[in-house]
């Protein structure tokens, strides 16, 4: 392994130079003459909306895709990575968003799998040492699945870093971490930076970029917008550059007015299931948007799943549109006009290998039963209608949903439920992992649906979103309703909610 550059980290020097990178996919130019320079010993944020070309650029660098034009210089020498394995041997390590480890192997084995070291004692000792460097005091002989997502994430970083790498690429490493864990990760990143490693950091969290990065490169629609020092532009300018539109306009959203005498859509009394949900009572009016706030595991998702029938409640009653219903399985809920966008889009939402058209028509078709099929013409009409209405970015309805970006996948799932014309729409983290522009669009759609008389339950970890759109907010804690706040909301609301979550005090 050549280690020529490690010593010269004092003066800024480009460890990696990518010039004029072009990448053509059938029908789309994914990258169009993009330049990217990375210095040794810096954390360089790579920014852009979904589909801007970040991932493609990374894939060109790591050998997953092969560039059509342009040059890549590593330490001044031209390289053409042919596969991720090949890139690793050149010193380019990548940690992907999804954890690519074996849950049934031990932590130590995971770190050393594929290396030349086999002796259990040695790898355990080395792994322990490595994890201590990451300030994690864990038992490396336990299987990986024993530990939380955050620890698993750390292990995958440890695995990547342990291979003597010059460049570390972190693709959305923080999306499943909580605040403390993020700080832990940042500490490690700073250490690696001090050791002279060049780190490429991809994330959707703008705060984190300002907290840790030195420079940033912004891409839009496959083109380079520019590379800036971190102090050079503020957050608002950054978003404007990313989206190409003004941020003020994008987020100019307001809750919809609900009539006083609007009929009830949902009335849930004392819902409960052993474990996650203790006792929840809810009431919702037609056209109302109810926000759920609370920490992960506070029972937000679980409550939604009880209403939708994904899990069966052991106690309590549900009334929909004034009629008592028994919801044993999702199908029952769908037949009663309930729709549910699940939290984990990939696991519970999309059907990856089916086309956009099929994904959109799935719930409508399930409602009708398979013996009463929608004709192909009806399906096409449905798909085209929602592709247009939700401005889903795709050449046609026959593209596989798995090939779309996260934001567009979310829109397709939304379309699936809009097509069933629900009375109650439950959205669990609909904006997670998607870019700023798409987030705003999804929120706008949500509010439009409220205007059309659909009641919406909106669950999100991003409190600003919840406060911006909701008529009422339910604050959840430990599987119980800790408080219910009624709008209009002001700048104080967020701290109030945080206080409720932290203290458990009853408010308003």
């Amino acid at each position, binding site marked *: 392994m050549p280690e020529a550059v490690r010593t010269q980290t004092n003066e800024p020097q480009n460890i990696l130079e990518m010039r004029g990178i072009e990448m053509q996919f059938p029908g789309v130019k994914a990258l169009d003459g993009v330049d990217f320079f990375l210095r040794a010993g810096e954390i360089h944020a790579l920014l852009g909306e979904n589909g801007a070309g970040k991932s493609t650029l990374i894939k060109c660098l790591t050998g997953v895709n092969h560039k059509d034009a342009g040059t890549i210089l590593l330490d001044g020498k031209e390289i053409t990575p042919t596969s991720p394995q090949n890139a690793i041997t050149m010193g380019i390590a990548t940690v992907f968003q999804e954890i690519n480890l074996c849950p049934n192997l031990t932590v130590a084995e995971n770190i050393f799998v594929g290396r030349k070291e086999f002796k259990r004692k040695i790898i355990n000792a080395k792994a322990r040492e490595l994890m201590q460097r990451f300030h994690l005091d864990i038992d490396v002989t336990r299987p990986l699945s024993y530990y939380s997502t955050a620890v698993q994430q750390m292990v995958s970083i440890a695995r990547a870093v342990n291979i003597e790498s010059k460049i570390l690429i972190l693709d959305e490493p923080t999306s499943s971490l909580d605040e403390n864990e993020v700080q832990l990760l940042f500490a490690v990143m700073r250490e690696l930076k001090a050791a002279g490693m060049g780190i490429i950091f991809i994330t959707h969290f703008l705060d984190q970029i300002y907290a840790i990065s030195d420079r940033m490169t912004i891409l839009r629609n496959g083109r380079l917008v520019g590379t800036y020092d971190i102090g050079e532009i503020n957050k608002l300018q950054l978003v404007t550059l990313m989206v190409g539109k003004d941020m003020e306009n994008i987020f100019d959203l307001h809750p919809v007015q609900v009539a006083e005498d609007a009929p009830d859509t949902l009335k849930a009394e004392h819902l409960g299931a052993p474990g996650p949900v203790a006792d929840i009572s809810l009431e919702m009016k037609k056209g109302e948007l109810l926000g759920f706030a609370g920490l992960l595991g506070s029972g937000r998702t679980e409550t939604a799943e009880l209403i939708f029938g994904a899990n069966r409640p052991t106690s309590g009653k549900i009334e929909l549109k004034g009629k008592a219903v028994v919801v044993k*399985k*999702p199908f029952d809920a769908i037949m009663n006009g309930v729709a549910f966008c699940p939290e984990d889009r990939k*696991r519970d939402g*999309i*059907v990856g290998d089916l086309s956009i058209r099929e994904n959109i028509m*799935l719930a409508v*078709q*399930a409602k009708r039963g*398979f013996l009463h*099929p929608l004709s192909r013409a009806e399906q096409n009409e449905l798909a085209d209608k929602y592709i247009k209405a939700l401005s889903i970015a795709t050449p046609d309805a026959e593209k596989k949903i798995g090939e779309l970006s996260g934001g567009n996948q979310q829109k397709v799932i939304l379309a699936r439920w809009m097509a069933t014309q629900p009375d109650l729409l439950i959205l669990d983290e609909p904006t997670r992992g998607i870019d700023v522009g798409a987030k705003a669009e999804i929120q706008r759609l949500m509010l439009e649906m409220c205007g059309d008389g659909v009641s919406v339950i909106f669950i999100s970890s991003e409190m600003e979103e919840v406060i911006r759109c909701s008529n009422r907010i339910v604050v959840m804690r430990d599987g119980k309703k800790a408080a219910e706040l009624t709008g209009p909301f002001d700048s104080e609301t967020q701290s109030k909610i945080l206080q409720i979550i932290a203290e458990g005090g009853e408010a308003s």
Partner: protein
Amino acid sequence: MKKKLHLILLIAGAVVLAAGLYCFASICGMKDAVYAGYGVSFSDASFAKVFVNDHDEEAVREDFNAAVLSGTGDSAADGTEAPTGTETPAETEATGAETETAPAAASAGAPYDTVIGSFSRVSSLRTAWRLQGIFLPVGALLCLAGLVLILRGKHLDFASIMRSKITWAVIAEILILIVCLIIRPDFFSISYQPSNHMLYGNLIDIINRSAEITIIGMGMTMVIALGGTDLSVGALVAVSGALALKLMRWDPTNPLYQTPGDYTVYPFILVLAVPLLVCLLMGLFNGMLIGRLKLQPIIATLILMVSGRGIAQIVTNGKQYTTMYSPFRWIGQGSCLYLPTPIVITAVIVVGVMLFVRKTAFGTFVESVGINANSSRLSGIDSRAIILIVFALTGLLSGISGLIYSSRIMSNDSNNAGLNYETDAILSVVIGGTSMTGGKFSLAGTVIGSIIIRTIVTFVYFFGIPADATMAFKALIIAVVIVLQAEPVRVWMAKRTERRALAKGGAMK
């Protein structure tokens, strides 16, 4: 321009097909002339032996004269068959003229020259025989391709065609057939056998013999699309056969409790319905274990795979019944629409399943559950019902397959009926382009896969490879087919095509 290409394909196909039919007709006419002239008839095998295979003309002449003068013609089975005149204009006229002079010529001792020499030479007959074997299948294939393209209205995209597994399956099949053709130029030839009213030839035989696997494959495709496998199909074939034969021979009034075998006590429809019903229930049992108890399909179906043959033994008290009941014979050995009945049954089932799957939303639901069961459930799809239907259908289809099998041998064989059918069915599904991990499936691909497997078997038998080595040889060819279909190979070929198309497009601009 693209549309034109489809039309050209269709027209070319029709022309080739017509040429093949002309050859076919002229051969039929030729035979009829022989039959009509001498009141003796030749089985197709001996007809081919005398006229078509590589005898020189002198030898043919001697064979023919000897046969006619000895007055036996050929096999006794065909001897009673009355010759029927067909409407092939040129030839029948010639035949008419010939019949009048024939007796005289026969007595003169040179029947060959009189009958054959007057309107066709053996070499041209031989050419016609071989040409029809090439024209008929090629023409049919072209016509089919043209029709499918026109009906689908999709523009031709060579890159995506090259990427498809089915394309490679078809190419593999054609390659094997071409090898057969090179070694035996009349391999594709098809002839009409008046004795049992059906067409006869290697291609027909391949399709006929692949019927059992194709039928089971229809169910297996969907089982695999759901991400499972059904190992019990072979055992169900045995159960179905055992039940059918038991019922056919069962006679409670007879002291032996048994009919002699040429009639049934119970209505024939019952004899067919009971095995099918039992197989359907066994399929439902599989479905319940998998859908409701969440057992892994491979484990759940292992139960019936192991116990099924035992059940078949119990049903028949370990006996092997035989039967002569002719309606039953029709299922596996009869003819329907000039084709062997199993082909027609298979065609009806394939079309029926395709319509059920693609004209309702059932296929999409199966794919959806196979790709992502969680998402499907949350979209309101009742995956348990889907699993139940798919396994029950597979059971029923195995039952039908079992009836065909036992009708072919007119007997039940609990040990060997449907032996290794599960592996053959799985293999044909996989060759047909459906992934073992579940998801998207192709019924048409499975049909092709099953035909490929049978082609290989025929190929192996045909070239006299020792019986002990057949399995190894079969495995070898299948390995080649599967390598051809491997993802990297297909992607590489598709990329090549794409690049060429791009280069062409660039040149055009």
